[in-house]
């Protein structure tokens, strides 16, 4: 009798007799067939699926670009901040920043836990020539002479000056102060040094002419960084007009700044995501009459509901994963090797002195998984549900044509 060899006996009714050792091979073969069929099905509707794939990839690319860039900027800021002082002390006058008297340095040195105190001289300078603000800072460790300065690479680029050139700044007395550029600052730290101009203490005094024995603020080194907050409390008690700023607070400010900028971009992209979700739902969830007919035929010729679901699962996975991997890879290249031109103006901020720097390539696994869950899972579900609905329908309807 044809077909009889496939069954063990009447009691095990019609269950295929695969030997146990072949189960894995059979399972793999089955998945292979399902993928084959799915690919063929996708190719049969290639215009529709290619369009969907392109939009999907673009969406992942945009989201991944924002995430990778903002994460990269945060990481960059955090790395640079590692060398920042643990504690900065400013003097406030009626809540406004004021110059700090030199006598305060001795008071600060006397506080337990403080190992070193240094007064800093720095200030902002508006250059009408390029309509940009520079950050001027005295750098005694650089050993600059009275007329020598070092400038950030971006500043040099914008002012079109280089080593050996003179940069003329307008001093507090209205007279021009010519300063000679002796070096450019390292471009790897351009995120922080873009608008920086380092100068000697005497040049700073000539330029701003601040009262004698005053500083802009003071930087403190503490013996145990974990006690920084306690020391800050002691400083406030000893010098009620002071404002201690912790390194962690600066980092948090950077973080909040990037979060805020990231939020603006995501808000804009949100509309795009919504449009995509509607499109994806329409494309994936709305089975065409031909697709429904195909599912009916497959059921009628012996495919289980589970086989149809597996096939739809492969379909959703192949499209969404291809789009995800392509979009993410493109975003990675764009952010880390292409200068992140797409979102840099928003995420880095607007400025005349626009820093140019290359982020260190890195992938945050948690971020990757969240993006994967947000973009891939909804699409797979959108593919599965209509497939399941069609698969549980009676195949008899197909036979009736």
């Amino acid at each position: 009798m044809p077909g009889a060899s496939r069954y063990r006996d009447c009691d095990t009714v019609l269950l295929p007799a695969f030997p146990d050792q072949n189960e894995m091979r059979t399972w793999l073969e089955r998945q292979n067939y399902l993928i084959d069929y799915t690919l063929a099905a996708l190719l049969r509707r290639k215009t529709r699926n290619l369009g969907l794939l392109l939009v999907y990839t673009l969406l992942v690319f945009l989201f991944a670009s924002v995430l990778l860039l903002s994460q990269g900027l945060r990481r960059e800021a955090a790395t640079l901040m590692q060398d920042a002082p643990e504690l900065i002390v400013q003097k406030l006058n009626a809540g406004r920043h004021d110059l700090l008297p030199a006598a305060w340095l001795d008071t600060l040195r006397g506080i337990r836990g403080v190992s070193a105190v240094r007064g800093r001289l720095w200030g902002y300078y508006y250059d009408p020539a390029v309509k940009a603000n520079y950050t001027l800072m005295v750098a005694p460790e650089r050993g600059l002479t009275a007329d020598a300065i070092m400038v950030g690479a971006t500043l040099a680029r914008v002012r079109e000056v280089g080593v050996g050139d003179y940069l003329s700044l307008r001093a507090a007395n209205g007279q021009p102060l010519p300063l000679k550029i002796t070096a450019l600052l390292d471009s790897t730290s351009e995120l922080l040094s873009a608008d920086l101009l380092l100068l000697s203490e005497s040049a700073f005094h000539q330029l701003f002419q601040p009262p004698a024995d005053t500083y802009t603020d003071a930087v403190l080194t503490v013996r145990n960084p974990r006690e920084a907050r306690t020391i800050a409390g002691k400083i406030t008690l000893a010098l009620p007009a002071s404002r201690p700023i912790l390194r962690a607070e600066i980092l948090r400010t950077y973080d909040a700044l990037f979060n805020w900028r990231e939020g603006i971009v995501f808000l804009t992209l949100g509309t795009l995501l919504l449009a995509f979700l509607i499109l994806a739902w329409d494309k994936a969830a709305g089975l065409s009459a031909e697709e429904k007919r195909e599912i009916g035929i497959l059921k009628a010729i012996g495919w289980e509901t589970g086989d149809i679901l597996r096939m739809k699962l492969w379909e959703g996975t192949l499209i969404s994963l291809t789009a995800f991997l392509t979009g993410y890879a493109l975003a990675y290249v764009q952010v880390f090797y292409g200068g992140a031109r797409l979102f840099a103006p928003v995420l880095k901020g607007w400025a005349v002195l626009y820093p140019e720097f290359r982020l260190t390539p890195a992938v945050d696994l948690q971020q990757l998984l969240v993006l994967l869950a947000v973009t891939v899972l909804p699409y797979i579900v959108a593919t599965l549900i209509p497939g399941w609905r069609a698969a549980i329908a009676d195949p008899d309807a197909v036979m009736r044509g």
Partner: protein
Amino acid sequence: MIELSAVSKIFHQGQPNECRALCAVSLTLQRGGMTVFKGPSGSGKTTLLTLVGALARPTSGRISLDGRLLSNLPERFLTEVRRHTFGFVFQQFNLIRGLSVLENVMLPAYPLGRPHRELTQAAQALLERFGLDGKTASRVEWLSGGEAQRTALARALINDPAVLIADEPTANLDSALSGEVLALLGELAAQGRTVLISSHDPRVCSAAPVTRLIELHDGHIVGDYAC
């Protein structure tokens, strides 16, 4: 042996367009031979074959296969039965467009995970047997009616079913092709398969391989003749 006991099928039950396709049909079909279900359009032939082939469940009554009740089996087991016991040739062929003849024939075996080489060989052997060996790579939409019918027949046989069900197998074919298909079905019946055909084509009803003729009218069996 397939047994139907007081089987009824009502479509759109309780709705204004309710349709009683089969009314308390009782029937026993022995293994082997070629049985033709004859009757005018709307007499319940296709519905009966659908129920026998486990493509749908009866509204009432019992259907059993070799003593095992099919009508109350869960869907998963019903699929197993459908996959291994029955092969279907649909009136409209129901081949999957865009796929080749070979792929269409192999489709019912995909969920079984048979080794690819073995499955391809089996499909090619069937196509050769039905004179389609030159068409294996052709897309099914390029086939003539007769070729599509034979492809559908090959697909129905890929899982080596014991029962072959063909719904109006000659409806879309000319006389020559009808004769060809009937000869193939007769050959299969002669090999020990149970062949169940629905048709209102007099050529089918009077064909030589037919062993039993069951006449239906308005969902009732009105004649049962051994040939």
